[in-house]
């Protein structure tokens, strides 16, 4: 297992890379939020794949990318009104109460402890802090390294390791401020919670690549959005074994046309790293190098600098997570840290063709 530096070691463990030193002025300014394993009190037990060590691995990836000297934004908790945009009051109250009573299993995958509620509030709050920082001009892109992840959490229920839907809380805050938000979800699992929450919302589009069939069983090609948002939900369900080629093509040939008609003013990314070939919970074949490509592609989808926020979702092999986060963040700041070559080949091309053609037809019907 990789030796993972703790948060306190960040400043001294490694300096910036040579390319970051060479031209710091022109480089993309990255804002980071969360990144605080010491404040993580969401205890899932010793053998759970979604564990606090993931945050240490992600934070180590930040260091590997030469960004270890970045000061994370001050922590802040999401407020009840901010959460209530995407979750029911009854659910929020029940979850808070259940955690306060000591926690336990919510379903066979999802476990909470007494500290989970505050940790989840901080995770959702970290996304909001990142959005606020970019709005005030503090940076060009942001990375939110927090847990628990969020994209499976639906309006009324936790599921699939997720308690509060972090990316949805931020997207809803932006939409409430009159912005148009595109959520790109490259986690290997379909973000059923995010899709459900914005299913019929004309101001928030949802684009997901994921392995299928796989948990949670949603995200089929024909799921394209509600009557007020036709075509604003895009699903690319890829077969096991698909490589980075399928995701690159999906972003280039399906997400790019979506951006052309939807015209988002912000792009939020559910950046899970469990599509990595080493991940124990799925069978896609991506490498760290692929995630660097994906980071560049989503940067190009954002309408301007300062309108891109990446949220950590899944990723359960700690070494793969560390390498993938490092490659992603390096790509965001125009660095070239690629610990693994991109993957290519494999199945899935036909699915990308089918999704592209379906949404082209939907687009023609809309206009």
């Amino acid at each position, binding site marked *: 297992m990789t030796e993972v530096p703790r948060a306190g070691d960040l400043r001294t463990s490694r300096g910036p890379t040579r390319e970051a030193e060479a031209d710091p002025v022109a480089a993309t300014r990255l804002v980071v939020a969360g990144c605080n394993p010491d404040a993580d009190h969401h205890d899932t037990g010793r053998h*759970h*794949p979604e564990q606090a060590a993931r945050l240490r691995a992600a934070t180590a990836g930040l260091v590997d990318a030469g960004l270890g000297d970045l000061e994370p934004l001050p922590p802040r908790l999401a407020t009840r009104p901010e959460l209530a945009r995407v979750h029911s009051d009854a*659910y929020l109250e*029940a*979850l808070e*109460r*259940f955690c306060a*009573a000591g926690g*336990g*299993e*919510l*379903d*066979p*995958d999802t476990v909470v402890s007494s500290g989970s509620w505050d940790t989840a509030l901080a995770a959702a709050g970290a996304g909001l802090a990142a959005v606020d920082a970019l709005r005030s001009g503090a940076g060009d892109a942001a990375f939110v390294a927090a847990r628990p992840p969020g994209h499976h959490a639906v309006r*009324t*229920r*936790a*599921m*699939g*390791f997720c308690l509060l839907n972090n990316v949805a809380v931020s997207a809803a805050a932006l939409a409430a401020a009159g912005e148009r938000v595109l959520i790109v979800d490259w986690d290997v*699992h379909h973000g*059923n919670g995010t899709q459900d929450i914005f299913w019929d919302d004309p101001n928030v589009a949802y684009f997901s690549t994921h392995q299928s*069939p*796989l*948990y*949670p*069983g*949603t995200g089929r090609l024909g799921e394209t959005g509600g009557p007020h948002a036709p075509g604003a939900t895009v699903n690319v369900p890829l077969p096991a074994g698909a490589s980075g080629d399928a995701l690159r093509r999906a972003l280039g040939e399906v997400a790019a046309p979506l951006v052309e008609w939807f015209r988002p003013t912000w792009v939020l990314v559910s950046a899970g790293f469990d599509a990595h070939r080493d991940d*124990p*919970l*799925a069978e896609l074949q991506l490498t760290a190098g692929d995630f660097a490509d994906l980071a560049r592609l989503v940067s190009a989808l954002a309408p301007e600098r300062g309108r891109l926020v990446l949220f950590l979702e899944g990723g359960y092999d700690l070494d793969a997570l560390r390498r993938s986060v490092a490659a992603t963040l390096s790509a965001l700041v125009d660095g070239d840290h690629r610990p693994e070559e991109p993957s290519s080949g494999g199945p899935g091309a036909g699915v990308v063709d089918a999704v592209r053609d379906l949404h082209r037809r939907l687009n023609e019907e809309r206009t």
Partner: protein
Amino acid sequence: MTGLCIVVGLDGSVHGEDAAAWARAVASRVGAAVVQVHARGMIEHGTDRRAVTAAPIDGDVVVEDGDPVSVLLRVAEERGADLLVVGRRGSSTDPDLLLGSTSHQLAERAPCPLVIIPPGAQLPGPD
């Protein structure tokens, strides 16, 4: 399929097995086919599909990766189910009851009649 079809959810617990026993007992009386469905969770993915219940299962068993609600709804639709049967855990401290249960969501979305078997339910009698 021409005969009646009962789809029942197995969740690896005694409640799922109670529901399956009830479904089989009813099926034998009305001559229905039983499809037993197990939704495999995120962690369970990749584990042995025979390990879905403690008791041995015979008959038609479907094991799919997914959330129980999505998987049960999809199988019920695909098989043209006439009846959907699920178990319910019972205690008042159960997070299922506190935080929105599978059976509650199915009640809102099931494409056919839904039967919820409470803990300790009797099997249907001999006549």
